Each structure stands twice: as C-alpha cells, then as structure tokens.
C-alpha cells in the first residue's frame, strides 16, 4: 500500500472520528444540560401512546409538553397507561380505536402507586367530599344559590339565559376544593353518579339499569354533568367508588413532585378567611425562611428527605407528609397522622382516632380506651420527630404547650360557651330550625368558622398576627359585641312576646357563662386594670 493511500485512510478515519466526536459531544452536552436542569429530559414516547402524542401535540400541546416534562414520561409511562379502561368500566369509550376513560381516579393510580393510594384513602383529604352534607354546602347550594334551576327574572343583554343554576356556587366554589360527586347526564334529564351505579369492590357498576340511563354522544362517549366535571377536588366522589383525586396535589399532566412540595400547591384550598393556613405559614418564621432559601432546598430531589436533601426550611409537605432522616425517609399520603388537634369544628377536638380514622368524642375514659386505636399523642410524637431536625426537645415541648394553651383558651372561653348559647336558644325554640336565617347564626358561624379557626391555626403554625389580631381579637369582638347582645335581644323579645319560660331557660345558660371569672371584666367592669394601663401609657408615651 502506497503512502498516498495511507494518507487518505488517515484523513478519512480522522475525519470520521472527529465527526463522531462532534456528534457524541452534542449528545453529551444535551445530557449534561438535562442533568443540570437547564433543559427538559429527552423522552421516548411509548409505542402505545405515540398516536395520542402525535395528535394531541397539535390539538392540546400544553398537555403533551407538561407530560414530556414529567417523571412519568422519563419512566416510559404514557397516556394509555393512566387513561386505559376496561370494557366494563362505566366511563369507558373508544377514542381513535383505543378504549379509554376521561377521569383518572385514585383507583387507576393505585395500579402503580398502591401504598400511596391506600394511605390517601385513609386520610381526611379523601373524606373532604363529606362537605356535601354540611353547613358549608347548605350555604353554597341554598343561601348563596337556589333550586338547581330557576327562571331568570330579567334578560341579560347579549346572553341568552334560559335558567339559573342555583348550585353554581357549590360547583365552582366548595366542590373544586372538596371534590364533586362526578356524574353523567342521564337520558331522563337527571344525573347518574356513584350513588346510582353502586360499584362493587373492583369499581365496576352493579346497577346496570343506571348504566343504561347514561346519556352518550353520537360516538358513544358518555356525557358528564358539567357541574361535576371538570373537578380536581381532593375528596372527589368518583364513578368507580374511589374517593379523591391525586391530581388535586400532583397537577396533571406533569405530576410534579417539586410542585407538590411547595406551599403554593396547598394554597389552592388552604387559604382565605376560614382556614388561612397558607397565609399563616407565610407569616411564620418557617415561611419567611422558605421564601428566602427555597432555591437551596433541592426541591427537585428524587426523595426529598428532610435532614438529607435539605434543612433550610419546612413547607406544608415537610411537616405533614414528607419523609425525614429520623423515619428513614418514609413519606405518608395521610397528612392527619402527625396532627394532634383538629381545629376545624367549633370546639377543637383531640385527635384520638378509632379504627376507621374517626375522632373519638366519648368522654368516658374506659370507652375512649376501648375505641381509640391511634392517639393524638402518637400523632404529636410523629410531628415532633420532624421538628427535632431543627429544634431541641425542650423548645418543641414548650411550643406545644403554648399551642395547647391557646386552643384550650379558645375552647373554654368562646368555643364551648358560644356553642352552649346558640344551642340553648335553639333547644328552647327561640331560633328557627333553618340555619342562617337569623343574624345570630351568622355571628356564631363567623366566630368559630372564620375567626376561631384563624386563632387556632395561627397558634398551630407560629403566626402571631393571625393568632391575635385576625384571631382571638376578632373572636372576642364577635362574642362580646355581637353574639351576647344578639342573644340578649332574642331573649328580651321572647319574654316580651309571652315566651318567658323559654327565655329564662336560655337566659340562665347565658348568665351562667357570663358569671364565669374570665367574663367578669365584661359584666362587672375592669376599672383597676384600665387605670393601670392608662398610667403605663402615660409613662411610656407621655399622653
């Protein structure tokens, strides 16, 4: 072989080598960019979802892009894996030759995430749909709304309005957090929901007559009742009998753990005048630290274990759900297992729970011992484990003492008395059986449902302003300036209208409460204390 030939061989191989090097470097740079979080991970679309992705990339590119950025996509979990349906699923329909269902329920997710789904089903989150039988729902459906459909009373220029949906506030408000009872339209004009379908343990409908009433379009796709779907409420009552919606926290279609770890995610529902946990957290030292240090909190970590992946600040997920160094990184999808008080009802309850996870309210110690399977103290110890990553035992115990004392103060001074006063008026027939048709019922609702919760939640998460000014201060104002005068007015009016016995009986309850030492300042005055304060102010400010 001549030297000239070898020269060309070297040139060709050298060129090929350099060319391959450029190509390999391009791939390597792309890979490193992905690893550094500067670019989305490359995704291989699973074969069974290729047609879905090709079409939806044109029609709904947002869904496809979100999915491409998900761990699902990286793990080869495509559209079909979640949306696939069996022929005997009530919501199954054929779409482009594939049998699928629109709503993905926790039962579907449990095919891969069984432990998480089981923990979630046992949680208070999964029971959030119980609001459908609560005062809040009465407010939305009746007080704020009306009959399911009633006639408009005047035209709306530019819009043809045939009927008013009296449940619109419930559908769009309450149920978007608490969860709807997902329903199909029925051929008879009604709805077909889980109540009619009566699904078995496998989620298959047992009432075939109800299945036959489901209204479908010309392609055989069942039509949802628009008030109940779309819905990502956390306690959604699904057609297969499962409760909840994983996408309430793990927003579709990227199901980002990073997002679920951030307080803003919980803030979709845990905010506002009645349970401002998000705002309370933001006011606390925890929230302040999170705002400052979130970039260093390794939110993308696979496991995100406190004490291993981060220590800068806790988020909602950290304290209530996430794994930590002291529990071997075990995550829970039941946020209730670390909570020792429930501050949701008018009077806070200790979170001793029975075998079904329900709070045991029995007062008898023996009965409590028989019923309680998980004590509030056990739950508190779990939370203390989390706290102990940053705080000493004495610090944590002292915090819990402060918290307990605030809750008990509210319970004893305002919660239980308020409940007793309104209860006495109701039992003695001085209030109508209808809720919210009398001023004192609104007053009491504001006191416990808004201000009382703010005070207690504020104390639970170290937010002084919510504990005091948005909380106990407003509770006190509501109690002394509104509830008590309104009760007295009702009693006086009853006495005036010949219902003296009832007024005396209810009045005795009110008087007994106001005779207690903590209310003495209101009844007897507190001139000595007022004078002491006046003098102190004069010394401090000269006025």
């Amino acid at each position, binding site marked *: 072989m001549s030297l000239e030939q070898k020269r060309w061989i070297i040139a060709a191989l050298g060129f090929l080598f350099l060319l391959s090097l450029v190509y390999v470097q391009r*791939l390597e740079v792309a890979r490193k960019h992905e690893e550094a979080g500067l670019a989305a991970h490359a995704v291989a679309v699973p074969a069974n979802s290729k047609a879905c992705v090709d079409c939806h990339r044109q029609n709904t590119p947002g869904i496809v892009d979100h999915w491409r950025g998900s761990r699902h996509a990286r793990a080869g979990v495509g559209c079909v894996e979640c949306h696939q349906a069996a022929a005997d699923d009530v919501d199954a329909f054929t779409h482009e030759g594939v049998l699928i269902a629109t709503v993905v329920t926790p039962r579907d997710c449990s095919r891969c995430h069984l432990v998480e789904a089981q923990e979630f089903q046992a949680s208070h989150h999964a029971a959030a749909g119980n609001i459908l039988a609560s005062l809040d729902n009465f407010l939305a459906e009746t007080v704020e709304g009306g009959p399911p459909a009633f006639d408009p009373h005047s035209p709306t220029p530019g819009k043809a309005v045939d009927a008013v949906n009296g449940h619109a506030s419930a559908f769009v408000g309450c149920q978007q957090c608490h969860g709807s009872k997902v329903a199909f339209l029925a051929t008879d004009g009604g709805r077909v929901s889980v109540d009619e379908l009566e699904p078995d343990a496998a989620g298959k409908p047992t009432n075939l007559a109800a299945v036959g009433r489901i209204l479908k379009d010309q392609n055989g796709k069942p039509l949802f009742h628009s008030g109940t779907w779309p819905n990502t409420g956390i306690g959604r009552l699904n057609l297969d009998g499962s409760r909840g919606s994983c996408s309430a926290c793990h927003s579709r279609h990227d199901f980002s753990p990073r997002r679920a770890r951030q307080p803003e995610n919980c803030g979709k529902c845990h905010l506002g005048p009645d349970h401002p946990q998000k705002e309370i957290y933001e006011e606390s030292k925890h929230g302040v630290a999170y705002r400052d240090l979130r970039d260093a909190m390794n939110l993308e970590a*696979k496991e995100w274990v406190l004490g291993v992946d981060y220590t800068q600040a806790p988020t909602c997920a950290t304290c209530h759900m996430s794994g930590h160094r002291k529990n071997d990184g075990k995550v829970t999808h039941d946020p209730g297992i670390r909570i020792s008080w429930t501050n949701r009802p008018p009077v806070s309850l200790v979170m001793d729970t029975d075998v079904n996870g329900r709070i045991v309210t029995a007062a008898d110690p023996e009965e409590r011992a028989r019923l309680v399977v998980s004590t509030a103290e056990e739950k508190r110890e779990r939370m203390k484990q989390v706290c102990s990553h940053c705080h000493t035992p004495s610090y944590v115990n002292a915090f819990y003492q402060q918290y307990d004392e605030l809750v008990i103060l509210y319970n004893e001074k305002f919660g239980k008395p308020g409940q007793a006063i309104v209860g006495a008026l109701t039992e003695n027939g001085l209030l109508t059986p209808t809720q919210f048709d009398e001023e004192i019922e609104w007053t009491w609702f504001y006191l416990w449902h808004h201000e009382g919760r703010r005070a207690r939640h504020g104390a639970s998460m170290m937010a002084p302003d919510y504990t005091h000014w948005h909380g106990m201060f407003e509770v006190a104002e509501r109690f002394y300036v509104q509830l008590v005068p309104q009760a007295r007015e009702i009693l006086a009016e009853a006495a005036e209208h010949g219902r003296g016995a009832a007024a005396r009986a209810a009045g005795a309850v009110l008087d007994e409460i106001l005779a207690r030492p903590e209310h003495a300042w209101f009844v007897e005055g507190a001139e000595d204390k007022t004078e002491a304060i006046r003098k102190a102010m004069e010394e401090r400010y000269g006025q």
Partner: protein
Amino acid sequence: MANPLVNWFHERLPLADVDLRELTNEPVPNHLKRWWFALGGTPAYLFVVQALTGVMLAVYYQPSAQTAYESVRYITEEAAYGWYLRSLHKWGATFMVAAVILHQMRVYFTGAYRKPREINWLVGMTILTCTLMLGFTGYCLVYEQLSYWGAAVGANIAGSVPVVGDFTKQLLLGGEDYNERTLPRFYVIHAAALPIALALLVAIHIAVVRLQGVTETTFKDDAKRESKTFNFFPDHLMTEVMIGLVLMVILTALASIVPATLGPPADPLTTPEVIKPEWFFYVAFRWLKLFSAQAAILSMGFIVFTMFAWPWIDAWIRRRTRFSEASVWIGIAGVLAIIALTVWEAVVAH
C-alpha cells in the same frame, strides 16, 4: 561585537550559540510541513493549557465530600472567570484525549511504531492511558451525582479485573467502597501523580524522538523539494503555534457557547436512573454491556495488551505471513469499531 548582556549570560551559562542552535533547530523531514503531522505537538500544547487552568482551579477547589461540590459550584457561579477556567479545562480535556488518539492513529497508520521506535510506542500508549486516567479522575472531582456514580461504577469495574482488581480498587478508593478518603485520593492522583507522570513521559517521548529522529516519510510532492529537511525552529514551531492559537480560539468559543454545567450534588443513597461515564469511556462502557462482566474485562485486557505489544505483533505478522499490510486493515476495523461503540453508547438511554 558581543552584546554586554549576552556576555553576562555566557559567563554564567557556558552554552555556545552553536549548541543552543543545535538543540532548538534540528532539521526535520519535509512531511512535517503537513498540519496533521503536528498532532504530536497538539496534545503537548493542550497539556500545558490543562496544567495552567488546573492550577488556577486548584486555588478554589476543596477535595472533600463535604466541600467539593460547593467549591465547584463556587468556581462555576461566583469566582471571577471561574466558569471560563472550568469550561476551558473541561473542553481542553476532551480535545487532549481526541488529539492523543488522532496522533496515535497517525503513528499507527504510517507505521511509525516499527523498529527501532517500539519503545516510544510503549511510551505513547502509556501517555494515552495517563490521559484517560486524568479524564476519569478529573470528572470524579466534580462530585455531582453522575460523576460520583461514574466513579463508583469505574471502581467496581476495576475491582472485577482478575488478580489485581481488588488491589486496584483499594488503591483508587482508599477502601472497599467510596468513602471520605476517596475524593482526596482522586485529587492527588489527578492534580499531582498523573501530571508529574505525564510530564516525565512527554519528556521521554520527545527525547526519544530527538535521539532517533522523526520517521522519514516521503510523499510524492516531497521528492520535488530541493532539501529533504527544514528547520524545526522557527518553521515547524510556527505551525505548532498556529495550531495552538486556533485551538485557543475554539476552546474559548466552546467555553462561552457551551460552558461546563453542574448537575445535582452527589447522593450516595440514590442511584441515578441513567449512569454514563465521560465520552472517552463510552467504548469500554458499551463493550461491558455487550458481554458478561468477566468476559468483557478479560477481552478488554487482551485488547489493551495487544495495543501495547503491537510493534512486536506487527513485526511477527510481517515476518511470518504474506499480509504485510494487515496492520492497516486491522487498524481500520479497530477505529470503525471504536467509533461505532462510542456513538452507540451515546445515542441510547441505557
């Protein structure tokens, strides 16, 4: 008339001009005028770039499991020109490996390893090995998730080598597994042991070239030239300097356009979904995936041994068979296999 300054030096350094000229100005064969015959000088130039940028990075780098990642982050994000130095070092490493391989290819296909240059081939192969080891240990120092797991996998592979495996793994890691002594060990190997070894090897390599002279290769157009040689200084040196300057421009451009990135920090408790070494180990990594561990390691050992011993194997083939050009065809097959395995490993996720 002698310059007083020159006289001053001559009195203190008794070196005659003619000796100095002979030392720096050796006549080299005409074929060296071709740029691809300057590939021997290119890795040497890149070695200097790596040494200079490496010293500057060492100012900030802190070799311990607790501080390594943070110090690399500091270099990348906060230190003045830190990102530039780190990117130059990263791309310089890639170029150096590529230049050594290209030089080796040129030497191989032109038969420049044959008698009496077998020893320099051995030195060259050792230089290639040291360069790859520098690349491996350097990437491990970043202590990001992939570099950590890359090091763990690399050490396990080394540990699988029969007879010397356990000892090699212990030597690399300073224990049975990756531990707090491992990173300082990699640092010493990367920043002291290997550079000193490489500098000595390069010196020996050049000394042997000077002693034996450059292999004379005459192309058709060389025959027309009046002289068979030209001066190393300044003629050939200028070619090398030009290549060096062009390389600097390319390195700067790459450092600016595609700077070195930093993945998530090492997490010994979480195995990444995908582990890949640096690109120059793709060929070995793919080879390992094709066969059982034992078969792959033994066959790789055999291939490496064959590469080292090639001058004698080639001589034996030429002496005993009619296939005098067998080395060319084996070389073509080998280079194509390396390219194919590297690209294969690059394009697949696992």
